[in-house]
């Protein structure tokens, strides 16, 4: 028997996981789920079934009721290394009173292996590092078509523009895994193509993984390599034939 020279390890691995906010009210049961580098996976399902809760649980923000969760080689409650996980929550999590650049710089900072020391930040040696970081942030902002809004505070941007800032923040971070919750809502078709194009390009070129929650099943099918559907407390691969849930949608 031939020896396997290498084996691709999944970025996300869930085993017998049950998620939910209360032990007595579990939302979703996931017997097994693996997501590999370079893969785009979408999770669809009607609202309230636990899609966002699943994302938060994988991000380590909510404790699973049971089971084991491995993300970027770390088992919960250990967290992935700094900057390995990029997360675009449904509410975006932007600093509303700060500028677009400040918000995207947060992503660049997270992407550095070590935090910039507070006092060291004022030393001349760190100026070059800061300049490179700023350049990287501006690049990410430009890729989202927001070059004219770079100094605008977030609260002055439209909902769609804010979504693009959150995406730019994640791209500037260069994570191994991007988890995005409804990150294409409030965007027009042309902008969806642009944003999705940039994110897909990043995922393919850097061999990262993308896990997206999307309520629009048509869009989810269009963007993902693999589509999973949460229905009746279970997560299943999407089957081509229209299911009862699809008919409902």
């Amino acid at each position: 028997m031939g020896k396997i020279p290498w084996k691709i390890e999944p970025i996300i691995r869930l085993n017998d996981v049950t998620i939910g906010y209360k032990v007595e009210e579990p939302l979703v049961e996931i017997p097994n789920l693996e997501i590999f580098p370079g893969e785009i996976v979408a999770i669809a399902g009607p609202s309230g079934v636990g899609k966002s809760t699943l994302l938060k649980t994988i991000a380590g923000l909510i404790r699973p009721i049971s089971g084991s969760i491995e993300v970027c080689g770390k088992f919960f409650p250990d967290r992935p290394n700094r900057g390995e996980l990029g997360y675009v929550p449904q509410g975006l999590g932007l600093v509303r009173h700060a500028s677009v650049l400040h918000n995207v710089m947060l992503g660049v900072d997270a992407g550095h292996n070590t935090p910039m020391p507070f006092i060291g930040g004022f030393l001349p040696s760190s100026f070059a590092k800061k300049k490179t970081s700023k350049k990287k942030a501006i690049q990410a902002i430009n890729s989202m078509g927001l070059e004219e809004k770079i100094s605008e505070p977030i609260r002055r941007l439209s909902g769609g523009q804010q979504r693009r800032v959150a995406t730019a923040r994640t791209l500037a971070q260069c994570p191994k895994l991007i988890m995005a919750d409804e990150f294409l809502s409030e965007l027009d078709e042309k902008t969806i193509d642009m944003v999705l194009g940039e994110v897909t390009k990043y995922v393919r070129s850097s061999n990262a993984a993308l896990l997206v929650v999307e309520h629009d099943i048509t869009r989810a099918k269009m963007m993902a390599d693999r589509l999973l559907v949460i229905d009746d407390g279970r997560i299943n691969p999407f089957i081509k034939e229209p299911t009862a849930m699809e008919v409902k949608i």
Partner: protein
Amino acid sequence: MNYLHRISRPSWLGICILIFLFSIIVFNGMINDWGRASQGLGNLITFFNESLWPPDWSVLEPQVYPVCTVYPNFMDFTCSTAWIGMVETIKIAFVSTVFGTILSLPLSLLAARNLNPSWVSYSSRFLLAGFRSLPSLIWAIFFVILVGFGPLAGVLAMTVYTVGYLGKLQYEAIEGMAKIPLDASEAMGLTKFETALKVVIPESANDLISQAIFMFEYNFRHGTVIGIVGAGGIGYYINLYLKFLQYDKVIAYLIIIFVVVLIIDFISIKARSYFTEEIDLPRSTWKSVFLPSFLN
């Protein structure tokens, strides 16, 4: 569980009347001689006519010693006790607000329950409550004993009180911020310190600045009192003339304080309107600050 909604409106009225009657009974129990209260108005009129009025505005004249060397001459009121005391009070309020804000911010970041485990936040809250439990006047007495009379005791007293009071306002503002930016930072792997510096402070900056301005206004009003115990400021002169029973000078100082407090209140309202309102709304004008809304 909240049961308040189950109480009907007539029952509410009955409860309020009962509380009021109870307070009357308690008040009556404290007063031994109602006759003294009835003499009060007569006493006030006599005191006002014989001792308080007219105010002695000589407090605005330059002191005899040291000799005033201000030029031009019409500026010589800056050598008066009222001016010197007032400026010192403003300086004490300003310095203690700045020091207090700088010291309270790290403590309030530690006290916020949405940023730290309970043992950290409760320890910090305990410390802040300790600073706040004594009024600034008592802190002033304490520091006068430690460092002697003068503005240093005033600055120390007001700083300690500012840390306690402002710290509470700040951690409440921080706890009121949305959870999602904190979740996003945590998922990204930012440290607690980075989150505090780059997410929490910018997100709650408007509240923090507005509270610091309010604190300056508060410190100024209290700064007029702490001089009475020797901690510097205009209160020192008020106490001096009270001892000499020169009430006409005291009322002149009080009128000056009243006017300056009003001016600082107005400036504070104007300045805070830049930070408390949504920025895209029209700003309040000086006219709107000084005049009631129906006159605008």
